[in-house]
């Protein structure tokens, strides 16, 4: 195999990624930037100026929104990482990666919006926790006037993000662990008298962190710019910037589109700024860590802090679990008034009416999810195969290219992208939604698939080549079947990402492509928790079913091929 092999393939894949992924984002950013500097011919504005920026900063609560965004974004990411690291320390040697994977996989499948909607009900002053201890323990016959959910400090929003991000980071960390000779280092350090937690934190974790850094930035960017969770759990007067600017984009006064565009660009700058702050934080922490190592202090007593983190992680999982159960319960409720701990009357009425909207939304969600995931998976396989044939490790710029849609906040380019799509004549349809979702599905599929792909035993491929199999046959007859399990897992991840997309579906579908997520978020601002619960339950169930299928299919297909699990370990 020479480097010239598959040059055509690589060029094609790169062209597709550039034209299909990078160009739309650039075009979208460009239109947003233009509007941010006063250029939007549609409303008769053609003069370049800084006026939108002045207007944006003069909008009531704009600065508070910016501060809230930085606070909730940085705090939720830092806390999630802290808890995940602590939990990983605790789990190390206690629970295998398989067991942990099984425990947290459901949470990765559940979209943020569904979890947020469920969590809002669990923790609210009128919520499930309050209901189950009232009035016998609290004396509350009506809910207390406490600032939980939509609290001005955004603590509920931070908690909501943590419930989702702690499991994600934990899983990413476990995956990265296999690249580190942790067991050998652990033995060596233990022999030198260091405590287990200490070794994990000071020796193993820094090596792991290097590998998960980009994933942490993705979490940070997401936390800073999330709209749906912010709507459901975040402060409301003023809200975080992403929610505020979505409101401005959609306000009746169309002149607000200009300051909204400025705010969207500010949002992108905030993400950049936060990543820079984070980077400084990394350097500082690394400094401290090195100083610590140099002191050579042996410590056995860190168990309590890692146990505390494990308990926190457990709480996050428990809250998430409660949220999901609450959703399922509400979907079959007729009346459930405060302070009853359980519904007073049940009804499956909401489920019996797929024609009321959830049937179509579920169908849309499934079709869009399958197609977007299919596209992304094919593209990912083509990309990885191109790398294989070139025999090259992935360049840094390529890694950056893949992560681009995850790091640039969606709100910063979606409005502009909408204008660009309309201009190209493809707005407002299922095709536009599938395309826009693929932007975000592809990076996750790449993330999920790359490691297993590279871990494939190259001797098998070489043997096939020696037996005369051409590159296509090697791919189809050797690589793909062996990699069936990781392929399906990656596709399931992609599907879950697709199901969770809120803003791209809303903007690109011109609101005409209702999915479970857009409908659930819309309905969460209505009065009928029961109907919202049906959508949110389905929204969680769909990716979960796909996950289960991704595990079941290879298990069945390879039931008598123990070596074909596709696990790199």
């Amino acid at each position, binding site marked *: 195999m020479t480097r010239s092999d598959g040059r055509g393939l690589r060029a094609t894949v790169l062209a597709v990624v550039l034209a299909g992924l990078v160009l739309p984002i650039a075009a979208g950013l460009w239109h947003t930037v233009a509007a941010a500097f006063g250029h*939007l*011919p*549609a*409303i008769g504005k053609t003069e370049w100026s800084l006026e939108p920026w002045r207007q944006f900063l003069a909008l*009531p*609560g704009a600065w*508070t929104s910016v501060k809230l965004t930085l606070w909730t974004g940085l705090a939720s990411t830092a806390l999630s990482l802290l808890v995940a690291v602590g939990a990983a320390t605790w789990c190390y040697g206690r629970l295998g990666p398989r067991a942990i994977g099984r425990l947290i996989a459901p949470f990765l499948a559940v979209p943020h919006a569904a979890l947020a909607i469920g969590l809002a009900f669990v923790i609210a*002053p*009128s919520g499930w926790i309050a209901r189950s201890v009232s009035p016998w323990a609290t004396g509350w*016959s*009506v*809910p207390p*006037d406490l*600032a939980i959910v*939509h*609290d*001005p400090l955004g603590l509920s929003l931070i908690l909501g993000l943590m419930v989702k991000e702690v499991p994600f980071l934990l899983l990413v960390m476990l995956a990265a662990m296999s690249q580190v000779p942790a067991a050998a280092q652990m033995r060596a350090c233990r022999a030198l008298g260091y405590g287990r937690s200490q070794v994990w934190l000071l020796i193993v974790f820094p090596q792991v962190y290097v590998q998960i850094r980009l994933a942490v930035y993705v979490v940070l960017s997401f936390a800073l710019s999330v709209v749906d969770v912010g709507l459901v759990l975040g*402060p*409301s*007067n*003023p809200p975080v910037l992403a929610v505020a600017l979505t*409101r401005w*984009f*959609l*306000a*009746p*006064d*169309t002149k607000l*589109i200009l300051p909204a565009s400025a705010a969207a660009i500010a949002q992108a700058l905030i993400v950049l700024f936060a990543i820079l702050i984070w980077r400084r934080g990394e350097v500082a922490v690394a400094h401290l860590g090195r100083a610590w190592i140099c002191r050579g202090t042996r410590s056995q007593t860190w168990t309590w802090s890692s146990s505390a983190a494990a308990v926190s992680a457990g709480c996050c999982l428990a809250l998430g679990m409660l949220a999901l159960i609450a959703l399922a319960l509400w979907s079959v409720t*007729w*009346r459930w*008034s*405060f302070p009853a701990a359980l519904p007073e*009357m049940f*009804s499956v009425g909401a489920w019996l009416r797929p*024609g*009321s*909207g959830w049937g179509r939304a579920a169908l849309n969600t499934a079709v869009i999810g399958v197609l977007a995931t299919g596209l992304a998976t094919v593209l990912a396989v083509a990309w990885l195969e191109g790398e294989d044939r070139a025999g090259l490790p992935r360049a840094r710029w390529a890694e950056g290219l893949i992560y681009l849609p995850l790091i640039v906040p969606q709100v910063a380019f979606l*409005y502009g992208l*909408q*204008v660009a799509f*309309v*201009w190209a*004549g493809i*707005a*407002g349809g299922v095709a536009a939604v599938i395309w826009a979702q693929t932007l975000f599905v592809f990076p996750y599929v790449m993330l999920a698939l790359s490691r297993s792909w590279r871990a494939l035993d190259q001797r098998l491929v070489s043997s096939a080549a020696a037996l005369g199999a051409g590159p296509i046959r090697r791919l189809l007859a050797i690589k793909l079947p062996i990699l069936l399990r990781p392929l399906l897992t990656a596709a399931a991840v992609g599907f879950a990402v697709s199901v969770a997309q809120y803003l791209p579906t*809303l903007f690109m579908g*011109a*609101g*005409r492509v*209702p999915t479970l997520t857009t*409908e659930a978020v*819309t*309905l969460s*601002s*209505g*009065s*009928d*928790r029961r*109907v919202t619960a049906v959508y949110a339950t389905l929204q969680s169930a769909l990716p979960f079913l796909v996950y289960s299928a991704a595990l079941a299919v290879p298990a069945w297909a390879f039931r008598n091929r123990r070596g074909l699990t596709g696990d790199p370990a």
Partner: protein
Amino acid sequence: MRLPVLFAMLLASAFPLRAETWDEIVSAARGQTVYWNAWGGDERTNDFIRWASERLEADYGVTIQQVKLTDTAEAVTRVIAEKAAGQDEGGSVDMIWINGANFLSMKEQGLLHGPFVEILPNAKYLDLSPGSAATVDFTVPVEGYESPWRLAKYVLIYDNARVDQPPMSMAELLEWSKANPGRFTHPVVDNFMGSTFLKQALIELVPDRDVLQMPASEADFDAVTAPLWSWYDELRPTLWRDGETFPENASVQEQMLNDGVVDISMAFDPASAAAAIEKGLLPETARAYALDGGTIGNISFVAIPYNAAHREGAMVVANFLLDPATQAHAQDISVLGSFSVLDPTKLSGSEKEAFAALPTSPALPTLEELGPTLIEPHPSWMTKIAESWAKRYTQ
């Protein structure tokens, strides 16, 4: 033989803007799917739109696809984005449930198709005399650019198992809220329900109501609204969560009333309490009522964007919504419970009977109990009130 054809062609070119007849519109509409952009937070309305789609498909071969909005302005933004991209035909929005500021915004920017109301056969049931409720939308002249479909009126809702005597005026509300701190709130003022609450208070508190009919810029805004703000400054600290956070809209507040988080909610629909009870969304003891001296009321309209792809279908839908049978169905509390927009004097005997036969409910106030309908202030008041509220109370 050629002459008539030539003549017809000449005629066509001489009158390029010749109005289509209703029959032509109906036949062009057959087979169209109308994308009706309507706020989707209310299941009853969504059900009603589905019902309308079924009827229209049977009678006219037109179906409705509801585009559920969280905010009507989303549809306005979409039309603007299409105009930005030069898509002057085949637009994605066929019809919008609209009124007030959104209508003013679209009309001013020439984003609406029309005038079309006079073409609708069922417009004969409307009172279209100058100054009547169906010809003015928040004091903005409709001029045939939007067609009425439902009547809305501001009411308060309380649970009479928890509250014996609800406050009957904005002044009483302040006293009540002081006596029951944390048990009242209103939706955010960005939301039309929140601003309607403030407008209702303004109308009650302002010494001279006529000034509210002119644009706010022509009046001394600060002087006119001073009584409102002094009243609100007293009220706010007594609200739920000390008036620092507000529910997103009236539906959320209805859920808060149902959960017992607050004791009073509000709606722009006198039948909403009765309908919510029927759906298990409020306790049986919930009651809707209007304030002494009457409350604000207005008509909701449907408008058609200038670039709508299915303009004819949208007009057929608008006409269907004005049908007396449709309006009677909508007034049924088990359906929508929104009062008819038609002029009762223009209905025939059998058409009136359909309205008389509708069911009643203890939670549904009668027309007499609802009292007079107060006219909406000019929309600029709503915009300015929302702005100054945000300046005053958003840090």
